[in-house]
């Protein structure tokens, strides 16, 4: 029996220094072409082997060691190739699985599986594959511009996966990391951690599809905690929500948000105009005045509450004021701080890469919303892993908007974890929580 706490498919990261060779990074895609061809061919072979796995599960409820190892090696190898292409690792992975590669996957030995779960594996795996696509890890083999072919073990149900052509969050991170590495010779940790998390999830999804494990992939960001940390940041996500989702509010979630959409639109228009004034004021003062800071902070909190509600990441109908602590998925924002005028001057340009990542993570959150809607409609619950991943997406988005609105000078951090490192004292606001402009009525 496998341990319920220890996932049967685990990402192992040995990439400590984040150093990258500028030359190989510059030509990374070209260098990867032979690898991509090879991994595609191996993917076809693994697809065929998965037919054997499928039949074996139906007959004896367990995958043979030989085909298990064959498919597991393929998953490991494709993860390594993906890590290379997406700049999460530097050494060339060559044409076979390398046990000491900086990004690796551990897969447990075969265990007994349920026949029904095996029979419907392709259908069951679809949500995980969809989320893997949004994360950009695709189908373990996926890398930008590449497709692969897989089968659920039934030749008539062979499916062509063009997942990687969409890119997803990992591809967006890789694109930004490429510029960073070419300039500085090292990879940004946050982006690297997000890419490796995506690869880890993709490996889980592939292992599940190939019947290497009966455990459904988990997207819980806690998986990333062994190799990733969230540095202390002035904008933090706070989760006090539960996982229950009443069916009626799930079914009509979009309709229930309609008054919020109208209110959000009006508030956004105000923020657009006030933002320009705030930019000039901040350029003069070197920081954002307290009133404007409160106004923008409330806007970002409100937007986070609203998106959390719409995407089922949060349970309850949010208020209209963005009040601190008023919602189960909340954002803590530190008081205003002095910022460098040069970064204020070019703030929008500087925020552009963060917007790219936020946009990709928005896609992940949208996929979570789609999957969670169906799940919650049947079970009246939200899967914890998806909820937590959704919170990390919202946290990054909130950090991006607070950065671009000059609420903070700290750049958003992409690592897909929720907890910051230590139990040290939380920075507390040096002012009383602001009263919402419209009072408590809304």
């Amino acid at each position, binding site marked *: 029996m496998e341990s319920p706490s220890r996932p049967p498919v685990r990402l192992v990261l040995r990439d400590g220094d984040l150093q990258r060779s500028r030359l190989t990074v510059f030509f990374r895609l070209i260098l990867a072409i032979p690898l991509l061809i090879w991994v595609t061919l191996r993917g076809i072979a693994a697809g065929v082997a998965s037919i054997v796995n499928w039949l074996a599960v139906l007959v004896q409820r367990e995958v043979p060691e030989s085909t298990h190892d064959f498919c597991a090696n393929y998953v490991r190898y494709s993860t390594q190739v993906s890590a290379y292409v997406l700049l999460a690792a530097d050494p060339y992975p060559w044409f076979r699985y390398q046990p000491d590669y900086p990004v690796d996957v551990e897969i447990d030995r075969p265990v007994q599986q349920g026949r029904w779960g095996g029979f419907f594996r392709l259908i069951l795996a679809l949500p995980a594959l969809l989320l893997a696509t949004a994360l950009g890890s695709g189908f373990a083999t996926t890398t930008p511009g590449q497709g692969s072919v897989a089968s659920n073990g039934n030749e008539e149900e062979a499916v062509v996966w063009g997942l990687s052509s969409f890119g997803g969050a990992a591809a967006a991170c890789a694109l930004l990391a490429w510029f960073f590495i070419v300039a500085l010779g090292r990879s940004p940790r946050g982006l690297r951690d997000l890419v490796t998390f995506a690869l880890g999830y993709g490996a889980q999804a592939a292992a599940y599809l190939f019947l290497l494990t009966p455990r459904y992939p988990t997207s819980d960001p806690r998986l990333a905690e062994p190799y990733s940390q969230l540095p202390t940041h002035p904008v933090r996500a706070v989760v006090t929500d539960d996982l229950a989702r*009443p069916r*009626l*509010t799930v*079914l*009509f979630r979009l*309709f*229930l948000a*309609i*008054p919020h959409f*109208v209110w959000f639109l009006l508030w956004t228009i105000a923020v657009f105009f006030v933002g320009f004034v705030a930019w000039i004021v901040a350029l003069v003062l070197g920081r954002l005045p307290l009133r404007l800071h409160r106004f923008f902070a409330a806007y970002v909190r409100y937007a986070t*509450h609203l998106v959390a509600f719409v995407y089922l990441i949060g*349970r*309850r*109908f*949010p*208020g*209209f*004021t963005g009040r601190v602590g*008023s*919602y*189960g998925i909340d954002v803590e924002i530190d008081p205003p701080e002095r910022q460098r005028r040069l970064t204020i001057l070019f703030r929008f340009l500087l925020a552009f890469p963060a917007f790219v990542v936020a946009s990709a993570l928005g896609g992940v959150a949208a996929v979570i919303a789609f999957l969670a809607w169906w799940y919650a409609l049947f079970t009246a619950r939200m899967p914890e892993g998806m909820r937590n991943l959704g919170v990390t997406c919202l946290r990054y988005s909130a950090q991006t908007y607070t950065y671009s609105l000059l609420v903070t000078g700290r750049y958003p951090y992409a690592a897909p974890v929720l907890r910051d490192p230590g139990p040290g004292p939380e920075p507390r606001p040096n002012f009383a929580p602001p009263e919402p402009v419209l*009072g*408590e*009525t*809304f």
Partner: protein
Amino acid sequence: MLGVAALALGAFLLYPTAVPDGLALPSVDVDAVFGADFVDRAKRYERFFYVNWVLAQIALFVTLWIYARRGAAFARESSAGPIGTGMLLGMLGLAIAWLVHVPFALASHWWQRRWDQNDLSYLDWLFEDWAVLAAQFLSICVALLIVMGLARWLGERWWLPGAAVFVGIAALFSFVAPYLYYGTAPVERKPLLEAARTYEQELGVGHIPLRVEEVSADTEQANAFAFGLGPSRRVVFWDTILEPPFTEAEQKVVLAHELAHHSQRHLPKGLAWFALFAIPGAWILMRATRRRGGMGNPTAVPLALFVVAALQLATAPLSSAISRRMEAEADWKALTVTHDPAALEGLMVEFSKTGLGDPDPPFISQLVFGTHPTLADRVAMARAYADGAR
């Protein structure tokens, strides 16, 4: 007492129409005019809707009653303040009512398709009204924002300004609706445009634009309507009514009828009638929700939904009767400017055939749903006019 007297005076002033007092409508043999087979078929077709409507109403009121008793528990699903929570409870009530309504609407659609009265596929039918539903969600939020905002500000005195605000919104909506109604094109038929100029002069209304809406892809039913206030006044024809079997003379009668709605100021009068209903309605709502803490309290919202639905049902016969009087007046004015009772009679026959409408529906159904005089009564009015003209 003063309020009741004011309402009665208002109703007294709004009640008269241009239809001559004591106009005796001759008896009409519907079998002879519309055909016995057709009348029988139309009765069978419409009977289903009566039953379906009754069942839908029962289901709706049972559901709303349960929601009125237990719906307040949904307040725990809100992190918003009282008004936000009220909005949530209002929207959830609407959502439940919509869910209950779906099977009956589906049955109606199935029946219409079965009788070749609707070509819309089930999939299209399912998705065609999402925008309308979204608008209803927004409307209920705006309504609750007004009512709860006023109730929290003014206490139990909210009902009078509340009714005034709703009348104001209705007036505003009546004014802007023609500008928001997209998908129409100008009518380009010369005979119709020339007739419009003549009728406008005879009826004493200024120039009113004529528009046509393309609906023939979805239905064969024919219709036209007048809307707007002041400069936004319009007359819209469905394209189905501008094609055969409707003759040019019949189309002119329709035109005159719709222009008469404007000349007789039916839309402003409709708003005035709405005010006469809204003021006591708001007062009843205030009284009914008093035990739940009044309309300022979100937990009163589920009960308020039930009360509003009950008021709508209770006033349906009255509002239908008012509508019938206005339609009869428009028919009469159309006769006085077209001088063509035969065209009006022919129009009614075509209406019944294209819409499979029962020319002489049961009294109860006419009492509740009859926003227009029965087709038989309209034919009778045409004959009465013809007799008078002779």
